[in-house]
């Protein structure tokens, strides 16, 4: 499916909500219309992006808003890809897409765990790769590579698991 077709379809229903970014098969979506557009991309039979492949988040500190989130979608009807870009500030909550695509559940948990972006209306927003009382979010650019408290003795018994 052509990226321009997708954009025109969104423009018809939600004017000014989406725009081309210049990236391959990529559009950016405005914050206030984000969840409506995502619902439309999934439900509209002409678009039918029925699979959420992945969510990639980037920490662009010191830029404001701080984070870029890229949703990678796929339509299994004609195998076309779509990348949806959204910006989010440090204390902003992003609406969860786990109600639309089941794969969004773990994808968002991972973004929350490693990047520290919170998702509203998520059914089960827990850490996934690190443990319950882990401090900080490792993939943020201000998190040191060797970890925090590197010179302190590590005590495995302090780890709380879910």
């Amino acid at each position, binding site marked *: 499916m052509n990226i321009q077709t997708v954009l025109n379809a969104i423009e018809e229903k939600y004017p000014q909500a989406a725009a081309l970014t210049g990236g391959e098969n990529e559009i950016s979506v405005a914050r206030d219309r984000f969840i409506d557009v995502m619902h439309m991309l999934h439900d509209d039979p002409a678009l039918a992006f029925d*699979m959420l492949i992945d969510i990639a988040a*980037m920490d662009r500190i010191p830029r404001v808003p701080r984070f870029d989130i890229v949703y990678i979608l796929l339509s299994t009807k004609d*195998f076309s890809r779509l990348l949806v870009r959204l910006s989010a500030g440090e204390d902003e909550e992003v609406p969860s897409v786990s109600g639309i*695509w089941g*794969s969004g559940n773990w994808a968002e948990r991972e973004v929350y765990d490693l990047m520290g972006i919170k998702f509203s209306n998520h059914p089960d927003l827990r850490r996934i*790769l690190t*443990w319950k009382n882990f401090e900080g979010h490792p993939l943020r650019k201000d998190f040191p590579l060797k970890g925090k408290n590197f010179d302190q003795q590590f005590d495995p018994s302090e780890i709380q698991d*879910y």
Partner: protein
Amino acid sequence: MAEGKTITLNMGPHHPATHGVLRVEVELDGEIIVKATPHIGYLHRGIEKLAENRNYLQVIPLTDRLDYAAASANNMGYCTAVEKLMGIEVPKRAQYLRVIMAELARIMGHHLWIGTHALDIGAMTVIFYAFRDREMIMDINEEIAGYRLTPTFFRIGGVAADATPAFIQKVRDFVKWFPKALEGYHTLLTENKIWTTRTMGIGKISAEDAVNAGLTGPSLRGSGVAYDIRKAFPYSSYEDFDFKIPVGENGDVYDRYLVRMEEFVQSVNIIDQAIENLPEGPIAVDNPWITNPDLTSVQKDITDLARRFVLNTRGPVAPEKEIYHAVEGAKGELGFYLAGDGTEHPFRMKVRSPCFYLASALPRLLVGHMVADAIAIIGSIDVVLGEIDR
């Protein structure tokens, strides 16, 4: 069992049938699973964070350790993604060598799957045959790359070494031998009454649910969705080869088994076509900013020596650009979201791991089945924890 009373059972992380360190917390009503919660992260090594602090060449060995059962397939994903980011066109001979290595890796991954999957269900013999044949591929890896399990044979812009006559002979021997070996696996399992009873109708997932849950690869194709990236978005000359995408109908454990068994045949078929039609020419792109000068010229020419040193300590530079590129790994869609920032290391590398989403679908697959079937289901989606936890 008293009405409404359930017990919680912890499977893993040190359980031989969870294929690594997967922990599944299952809630049981008698022997029926009413709720399943997978816990992951026991093998988290921070590969994405490490990648941000290394140059593009130094990330290649890290990708080997994602899905360590099929290491070359991950190299394929990473290297083609970096080449897309940098806008490099790889020579045909290198592309064909890559295809051979990636398909051999896929077969290696499927060998591990069939051996352990059958072992979990109780058929012990299969693993001995599978590992005997897996050893042949390890020898091929050793011949061309020097390493057996994690060859790190790919480079950005090409491959590390040219095919030797011994390599070509070993691949030909394998292609000739393997169909016979596969017949052996079929004899042991496909019409085996115990095997079919344990697998048919177990762990069913409809095409719609599988797509919604983000399943890819053989596990999705078992439900009847013919999504194979080698056909949908061809890369590395896959459009040159003639092969089929096997699909199942019912989406149960048995269909996923049949799909993978047919993938063995298709992979061997691709390797056969690639080794017989291997084009002549260079094995790496001719670009002084990306590929190494060869070792003979390094010994004679001081500028080549300096260039080799600089290239390997600093690494090639990527433009300020973001791309997503995916390949068909052994387990499904292996994608790399790469953000370059004009320096030698990725600003961000996000690995789209197929196994991560396969494991996330476990609650849907397990509920309603017995504990013994959980083992069959975990085996059938073929997860490798190195790739889930990264």
